[in-house]
Every structure is written in structure tokens, then in C-alpha cells.
């Protein structure tokens, strides 16, 4: 189950729309061990592609360092699919390397209605989970 504040949900969707047709990506950080996303961190998609995303490695280091300093962890790792459904692809699954994170996928294939879904990806297994927006 992913519980996410309304303003963070809206920021993720807005980011995905703004970067469309390229994939958008980012992190929601939260206090370590609490499973509560609190801080919105949009990331540069270094791949700048409509079908691939990758965090810029130097930017990623800075964000991970900052989370560590603040005793936070990446609660949500999000990215968008711009022409396909909001479901993890094989690539998404093979690069899912934060076992504690909720992987959020947004699809911007429809101009009016964004799809927002969340998953746990552990050892190559995808499990969809309900999303509660509060």
C-alpha cells in the first residue's frame, strides 16, 4: 500500500506532463523506516528519451548524500511512460535496485487522464499495490 499526500501526487503528475513526451523521473524522500513520502525531488532524466530514463549519476549522488544526512530514504521512485501503460517494463524490473522503495509509474499517453499506479519490485517480482491519496 502506498499512502501519499495529495500535493506530492499532484507534483508527480505535473512533472510527468511537463516532460512529456520524454519520460520524467524522480524520488519522494521520507524519514527512514517510516514509509511516509514527504519530500518531492524531481530528477533530470539524463537519457532525455521518450522510452528510457536514467538519473544523472552526479545528481543522484548529491540526492542520496542529502537523504543520508537528513536520515531519510527513497520512499518512492517514480517515472513516466509516455505512450504505454503505467506498468513496469522488463527494463524497469531489471533496474529496480532499491528493495525498500515503492515504484510509481505514471502514464501520460492520454492528454486528459494521467494513470498513476504503484508497485513493489523485489527479486524480479512485480506486485501492484493500492494507492491512497490523503
Amino acid at each position, binding site marked *: 500500500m502506498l499512502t501519499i499526500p495529495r500535493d506530492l501526487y499532484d507534483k508527480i503528475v505535473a512533472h510527468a506532463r511537463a516532460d512529456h513526451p520524454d519520460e520524467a523521473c524522480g524520488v519522494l524522500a521520507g524519514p527512514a523506516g517510516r514509509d511516509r513520502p514527504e519530500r518531492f525531488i524531481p530528477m533530470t532524466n539524463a537519457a532525455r*528519451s521518450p522510452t528510457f530514463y536514467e*538519473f544523472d549519476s552526479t545528481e543522484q549522488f548529491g540526492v542520496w548524500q542529502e537523504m543520508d544526512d537528513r536520515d531519510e530514504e527513497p520512499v518512492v521512485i517514480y517515472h513516466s511512460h509516455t505512450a504505454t501503460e503505467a506498468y513496469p*517494463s522488463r*527494463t*524497469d524490473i531489471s*533496474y529496480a*535496485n532499491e528493495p525498500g522503495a515503492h515504484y510509481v509509474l505514471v502514464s501520460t499517453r492520454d492528454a486528459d487522464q494521467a494513470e498513476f499506479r504503484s508497485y513493489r519490485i523485489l527479486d524480479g517480482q512485480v506486485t501492484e499495490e493500492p494507492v491512497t491519496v490523503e
Partner: protein
Amino acid sequence: MAIEVRIPTILRTYTDGAKQVEGTGSTLGELLADLDRKHGGLRDRLVDDGGLRRFVNVYLNDEDVRFLAGLDTPVKDGDTVTVLPAVAGGAS
């Protein structure tokens, strides 16, 4: 001589859960070989035939070693090496 190496969650199975380990060496390559002696299998997750694996980021202090000398990057006592899996994916 000790170099601190920070290990991401997903690789802590090789270090008995430790988020930080120590190693020695005068280059990153030597350091990884040293770590592999103490934590067998760890090096294979970071290095393949072509050098450092494509979707693993290794930093010397705060610089990505891809912008330094890769596995030949000199390291010294007091340095910190950080490993972070790349965050990537996409529809394709």
C-alpha cells in the same frame, strides 16, 4: 591504510548487512579486488569484462569515477568510495 567503502542496500548481502566496509589498494581496481577477498562475489556485481558495470555508479569522494580514471583511479587512505546502483528504466 584504510579506505571506507559505502555499500548500497542491494549489495549488503555480500557484507553481512554492513553498510560500510574497509579496504586497501592504491587504485580502485586494487581496492575492489581486496574487497572481493573479504566479501566474495561483491566485485562481480561491480565489474564485468568491459570494466565497471554500466548501471552501477562508483564515486571517489563525490566524483563519479567514470569522469576520473575508472578502475585505474588512484585511491588513498582517508578516501571514501561510494557505490550506488543506477536508477534507470523505461518503457522500452
